[in-house]
Structure formats: structure tokens, C-alpha cells
């Protein structure tokens, strides 16, 4: 039987990997914007913060990046995945969500907000791509899922050597299907190299995509970038969620979307991170001021704070799981319910 220490190690490794992947996903998104937003190509990067809705029932869809081509008559809705689930049930769920992109959608960067037709592009991590292609081929052939649009899967990954003219790159490679943009398909087949070294400054300003990051990623951004902007001294201080959001909006999210309706960082993400700080005893909610927190910023964390946060949150998760079904857990749930009702 797996010991709790083994369980902890596995969780920590998984979490660290999620944080690294999220960081890479941000670079990938910035890289796509950089490559297709500035150079004269048939395809242009439109947005990483679009507001789209299906034409039929106006339900919202949230692609990670949007491209337009053929003089803006056609578009591509792009979904970027840092990781894909292993159990078939959950994987199929992911694809069902993606199937919704097949419907005609409004929100494009055109005068009518519409395009004649669009394609769907799934960018998944190189570690997942073979598995995903096998599964989706199978499900499409069995009629489990049906993309009514042209559908393409490409994989992305960093190259773990400095062999491309000593530059650090993310490679995007074609894996399955086609988009309607012939020149883009050609590029995918020839491997797209995103020069990550060229994105140093951009990452400093865009640290989030529209995908919710692992909570520890936000905790790190708060602890090392946002908290220092709000206090002159490394000591405990009180902060309001609105003040944190303001710094995040001012310094870390300058994506320019079609109408800029969406902000990359969400209040809920920050609130969740602040609650995690409370859980690991680095903050405390202030009584009578629901959006205020006392942060124990004077606490000296000797080691890498990413590791520290990951270890603490994983331990808490294990503790919580071990409590499930116990009397203590039931009492806690009842307490929370009564707080909620109040």
C-alpha cells in the first residue's frame, strides 16, 4: 500500500510539473501572438482573451487563442492544453466541450462579428499527443464525437537543448487532421519554432492565460511580485483583494483582445490563492472585512517558495482526504454550511 510520504512525493511532483507546464503554456500563447501577430502571414493572431458565444443559443465559449485568415473570412478557434486527463470518461468530457466549438460562433474581429467558416485547433503537450490522437481517431470513427468543422491536433513542447542557434524554443508539430488554412498546415508540418528567448520581456507582462493556473502558481506570483509592490517592508500587513487585483491588472495582463472584455487574471483565482495562504498559515481573514487578509509576510521562508507552497498545500490536501467520512469532517462541513447560510 502506498505510504502517505510516497503519496506526498507523487503529488508534489505532479503539482510542480503542472506549474512548469502552465508557465510554458503562457510562453506558448505569447509566442503564437508574437509570431502571427506581427509578421505578415496569411494567418493572423487575433486574441488570447476573446469573448465568443454560439450563434444559436448565445452560450459562451472560451477558446485560448483565436486566429483569422483568408482576409478575415475564415477563423480558427484554438484550445491549448497543458495536460489531458487519463481516464477515458474525463477525456471524452474534454472533447465534448471542444465539440461545442463546432457551432457557428459570434465574436470574431470583423464588422459583423462573424466569419464564413471556422476550424478548430487543439494544441496539446508533446507528452499527451500520441495518446490523444489514438483516442480521438477511435472515437471519431465510432461516432462518439463529431466535429462539424475542420479539426486539427498539433503537439507543443520545449526542446531540451540549445541546439537551434543557441536559442531556447518551443516546437509546434502537426499530429492529426487539417485546418482550412493551407499555408498554416504547411507551417505545422514543417514544425513551427517559437523563439522563447525572444519572449523574455513579454512574459514579464503577461503571466497568465485565460486558463486557470495551479493555485500555487498564483501564490508564487502574489508572494514574489504582487505583495512586494504593496508594502515597503517585509513584515505582516493587511491587504484587500481589490488592491491585489489592481496591481495584477496594472502590471501583469496587457493582452489586447478584440474588445478587451476579459482580463486574464480573475478575482476568483486570487481569492482562492489567498484562502490557500490562510490554509497553510501564511495569512488570516480579517474579521468583519470579508475581502481583507492579514498576510504573514514577515515569515521567512528559507527555501524555494514554490517548493514550500507545493509541499504545504499537498500536505493539507492529504490531510483533508484522510478526514473524509470522519466525524471531524462532518462537523467541519456543517460549520461551513451554517456560515454559508448566515
Amino acid at each position, binding site marked *: 500500500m502506498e505510504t502517505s510520504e510516497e503519496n506526498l512525493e507523487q503529488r508534489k511532483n505532479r503539482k510542480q510539473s503542472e506549474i512548469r507546464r502552465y508557465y510554458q503554456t503562457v510562453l506558448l500563447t505569447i509566442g503564437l501572438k508574437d509570431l502571427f501577430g506581427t509578421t505578415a502571414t496569411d494567418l493572423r493572431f487575433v486574441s488570447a482573451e476573446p469573448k465568443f458565444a454560439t450563434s444559436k443559443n448565445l452560450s459562451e465559449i472560451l477558446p485560448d487563442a483565436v486566429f483569422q485568415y483568408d482576409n478575415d473570412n475564415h477563423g480558427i478557434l484554438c484550445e491549448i492544453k497543458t495536460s489531458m486527463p487519463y481516464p477515458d470518461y474525463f477525456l471524452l468530457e474534454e472533447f465534448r466541450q471542444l465539440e461545442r466549438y463546432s457551432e457557428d460562433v459570434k465574436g470574431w474581429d470583423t464588422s459583423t462579428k462573424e466569419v464564413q467558416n471556422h476550424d478548430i485547433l487543439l494544441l496539446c503537450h508533446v507528452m499527451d499527443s500520441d495518446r490523444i490522437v489514438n483516442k480521438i481517431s477511435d472515437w471519431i470513427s465510432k461516432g462518439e464525437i463529431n466535429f462539424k468543422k475542420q479539426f486539427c491536433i498539433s503537439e507543443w513542447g520545449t526542446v531540451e537543448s540549445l541546439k537551434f542557434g543557441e*536559442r531556447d524554443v518551443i516546437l509546434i508539430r502537426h499530429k492529426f487532421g487539417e485546418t482550412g488554412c493551407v499555408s498554416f498546415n504547411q507551417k505545422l508540418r514543417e514544425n513551427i519554432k517559437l523563439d522563447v528567448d525572444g519572449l523574455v520581456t513579454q512574459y514579464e507582462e503577461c503571466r497568465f492565460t485565460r486558463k486557470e493556473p495551479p493555485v500555487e502558481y498564483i501564490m*508564487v506570483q502574489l508572494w*514574489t*511580485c504582487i505583495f512586494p*509592490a504593496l508594502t515597503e517592508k517585509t513584515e505582516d500587513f493587511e491587504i484587500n483583494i481589490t488592491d491585489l487585483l489592481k496591481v495584477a491588472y496594472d502590471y501583469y495582463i496587457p493582452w489586447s483582445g478584440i474588445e478587451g472584455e476579459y482580463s486574464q487574471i480573475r478575482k476568483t483565482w486570487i481569492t482562492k490563492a489567498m484562502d490557500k495562504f490562510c490554509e497553510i498559515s501564511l495569512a488570516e481573514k480579517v474579521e468583519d472585512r470579508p475581502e481583507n487578509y492579514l498576510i504573514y509576510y514577515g515569515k521567512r*521562508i528559507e*527555501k524555494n*517558495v*514554490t517548493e514550500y507552497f507545493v509541499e504545504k498545500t499537498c500536505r493539507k490536501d492529504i490531510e483533508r482526504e484522510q478526514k473524509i467520512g470522519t466525524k471531524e469532517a462532518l462537523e467541519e462541513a456543517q460549520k461551513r454550511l451554517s456560515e454559508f447560510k448566515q
Partner: protein
Amino acid sequence: MAHERLATTFSLIINQYTRTFLKMSRGAIKILSTISEVRFDDLLDKKLFGLENVDGTFRKVHEQNGSILWNISIERKMKRRKLEGNFLALQSGESVYLITGQPTEFLNDGLLYLAQKMYPELITAYVTSEEIHEILESFSKAVEVELFYTKFVAKKMFGKSATDISFATKREPKEYDPYTEAYKKARSQGLWIDAIKVFSKSAPIKFSIYRNGVFKYYCGTFETYYNLLLSEISRFHAQRLKRFENRGRRDQPKRQPNPLLMKFDSKVFEDVAIRKQLIGVIGDYDHCSYSVLYGGNPHVYLSIVDRIDNSSFSLRTYGPDSIVIVPQVKSTKAALMRFSKHLLNNFREGVISNFAA
């Protein structure tokens, strides 16, 4: 911001003091070069004498043409002993020189400790190995004498001590080599000169210069060294501080990042192990919080908070031979200076410039 020559009366007073120091100690005059925008006596009052373990007195000796000289006595209670001693502080513009004839122990546990306690209002200088070379060259030219070295300390990557220290063996004066030979030796082994002691065979000149901002002289007058050598240390220090000034994003018109590039003289980051060891170097940085977001392959990306004044910046390896330091919302010149000095001492020496992607 290079300092002015001292007025004659001033020079006479300091020369007199330092001569007495030299006679008393039969050793060397030790000088620590620092920079401060605050008057030194205010710093003493606010930052030093308020400490539980430090006591002392000071008096102004002379003030002329914007330069001020103080005579200071301090007493520092340490764990098992008490350290006592006196020193002069000469402030000329923003340059502050702490001058003492006390033993080296007083320099290390007294003056360097004091400077650390006065940070960030007082920033200790550092000079690179190449800057020391330039200083020696210009000094030698100005006084028209050749300088020979008696010993040098060199360091290699990760600032490892003992085994990396090379001492020249002592020989007859006529056998000593010019200081340029020390540089050749160090460079041929991929080392940086950390300290070098030189002398002239024909003039009363003998001194040591260290990368950590310490200067010692064994003969000659303060005035000569002040005008020709300390002024150069001060110039390099001021240039560096200028580069680190107004780097925080809140100081920029569009809040844009204003990064710095530190370029090394070889492709160190081709080796993954070195990239990972760099994280260890950051982990050893005093008074900091750091977080590694991406750890080594193909690059390192981490964030650093200076816990003394809450400056923050990120660091990323860039290509095979550089790192980029990106000051965040608030980032002071003192913090960037302290951090770059840490990299110099504990990683390797690099050339700092503005970063352009």
C-alpha cells in the same frame, strides 16, 4: 558623480591622521568605499547607534567645499568578545570612505558590519576584476611608475575559496613581475582577480585592491590614493549605480519592464548542471525569498524578493552565456547592486548592460 579633489587644508588634516594611523598600527590603512545619499552622521544616529549591540561617539573634524570628515569610535558587543576601534568617515558628495588604521579584524567585524547595518541607505562598492585592471593601469600611468605584484587572490566559478586561491611565491624584489602578469596567469586558468597587492620599485607606493570595495595602502599619502585611485573606484561604482537606477516598473512611463543583461565570457549555460547550480547560488543569497518557476531545462526562471527593502526582480538564463534580470514593480538600485555583487562573488563575473531582446 566622480568626486572632486580634496582642498589643501582637508588633505593636510587627513594625511596627518592617516600617517598617525600608519605609525600606530605598523600595518595598513584600510579604506572601505561606499555610497550614500544621506549624510553619514545622520546614518550613524539612525541606523547604527540605535542597535542594541553597538555603541559609539563621533565628532566632526572638518568641513570644506561639500566634503565632511568625521572621527568615530565604536564599540560592538559580539558573542564572546567586544570589538572596539575608531575610524574616519570622509563624505564627498555621495561617496563615503570609511578609513581606519585598526587591524583587519576591525575592518571585517567593524566597518563591513557597520556598512551592512546601514544598507540600503549606505551601499558598499564593488569593482570587477577588469575594472581593477583599468584602475591599476590609469594609476600607473598617472604616477609614471611601473607596478609589480607581490600576491594575488583569484577565484573561479561559484566563488570557491581555498583551493582556488593562488599566491605568488615571495622572491627578491627584482624578480617580481608586473601586475599585468598576474592577469595573464589568472585569465589563462579562467580565473578572476579577486584581490591584488602591488608596489613600485622606485616610489613609496604599495597597496592592495579588492573586488569587494576594500582598499589598503601600506605607504604613501592618502591624498595620492584619494585623487588617483579611490576616485576611480568611486567612478565605477557611480556608473554601476546609475545603470541600476529607476529600473522598477512603477518608475517607467508605461510601467514596462526595464531589464538588465549580464553577459559572461563563456557559454556556461550549455551545461545543464551549471544552470541548476545557479539556483543553488540564488538559494545562498542572504535576506531573500526566491521561487523557481522553471528549473533548468532549457532555461532557469525564478523570482527573487530582497527582504531588506522588498525589491523584487526575476532572473532568467538567456542563451548559453547570459542571464536577464528583470526588475519588477519596485526595484531599488541598492538591491540590484547587492544582488549583482552576490553573483559576482558566488557565480562568476559578467558584464552588465541594458537588455534589448
